[in-house]
């Protein structure tokens, strides 16, 4: 029992604070979809099939403005390109799962599930023994990330909790349909969640630089088409971190 349930519960518990930030975002996604003329079934279908908030909001916004279908698809896909970085980063930790689990875990990969899982798996930012990639084996008894069953359970516990809350919040948003007054600014809870994840990650100078450059480029590119400010900021930040890392170690 504990072998499967303990990591599931640990993951779900760890995701609890993030779920709070998910609720207003999901409500907004549901309300916006109905506002744009999607049927309730389509609005919930979008949430289930795509399961990525920012791109869902882009889809309904562009559909509402009758943008060409190719632009709608392209924009939403570009917004989600950052997930390829998550996929590459987390791939070693999924490598020894069975394929059906890898597919399920990939479908559930989001900003939040990635951030939470990678923090747990790498424990302090450095890769600890998962067999394939590590050069030193971690023998810290408190970290069980070397155990694939634990890793899978922890990830699914967190990611499935996020999926359920996201779908429930979307459904409520669709059903209620009534817009929360703009002046409450509840959408601001979303960047606050990202901020709460970002700050503890700033553990060394290259990471701080990566964040400063990434944030600056994203602000400068806020008006760029196709959400290229976000993608460009992320890439510029990674480059800045690598360059700074090279300087420090040179």
């Amino acid at each position, binding site marked *: 029992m504990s072998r499967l349930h303990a990591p599931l519960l640990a993951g779900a518990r760890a995701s609890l*604070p993030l779920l709070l*930030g998910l609720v207003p975002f999901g409500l907004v996604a549901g309300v916006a979809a109905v506002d*744009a*003329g999607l049927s309730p079934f*389509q609005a919930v279908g979008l949430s289930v*099939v*795509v*399961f990525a908030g920012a*791109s869902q909001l882009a889809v309904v916004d562009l559909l*509402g403005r*009758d943008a060409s*279908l190719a632009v709608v698809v392209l924009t939403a*896909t570009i917004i*989600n390109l*950052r*997930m*390829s*970085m*998550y996929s*590459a*980063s987390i791939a*070693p930790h*999924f*490598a020894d799962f069975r394929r059906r689990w*890898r*597919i399920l*875990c*990939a*479908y559930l*990969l989001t*900003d939040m599930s990635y951030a939470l899982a990678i923090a747990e798996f790498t424990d302090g930012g450095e890769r600890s023994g998962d067999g*394939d990639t590590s050069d030193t084996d971690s023998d810290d008894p408190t970290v069980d990330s070397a155990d694939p069953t634990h890793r899978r359970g922890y990830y699914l516990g967190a990611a499935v909790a996020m999926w359920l809350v996201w779908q429930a919040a979307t459904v409520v948003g669709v059903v209620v349909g009534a817009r929360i007054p703009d002046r409450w*600014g*509840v959408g*601001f*809870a*979303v*960047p*606050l969640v990202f*901020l*709460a994840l*970002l*700050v*503890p*990650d*700033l553990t060394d100078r*290259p*990471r*701080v630089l*990566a964040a400063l450059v990434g944030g600056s480029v*994203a*602000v400068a590119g806020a008006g760029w088409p196709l959400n290229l400010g*976000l993608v460009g*900021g992320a*890439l510029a*930040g*990674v480059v*800045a*971190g*690598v360059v700074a890392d090279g300087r420090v170690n040179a």
Partner: protein
Amino acid sequence: MTTTYGPSSVWVVVLAVGFLTFCIRYSFVYLFGRIDGMPPRIEAALRYVPAAVLAALVAPAVVDPGPTVSATLADDRLVAGLVAAAVAWYTEDVFATIGVGMAALWLAGAVL
């Protein structure tokens, strides 16, 4: 702002975005079994992905460049964001960060 596209067009968009997004998510998870480990350079770069991406997601939501420096700095969202960042730094607690950040946003909106 209601779409004039019919149900089938909407479903095509939903399925296309969903399929492409899944391909992005699964890409390296799929490839990892076929390539023998991650090249060290990529591995090193990936260390900076969370900081870079999270900052790129946060910054435009908090910083709204105004006509003057003081107008930019006095923005409700930037003030609330800085307060929330301080709370995140000292508590590393998401609940506290959201709670104080939202309170700061409302307070700044009332004061500024």
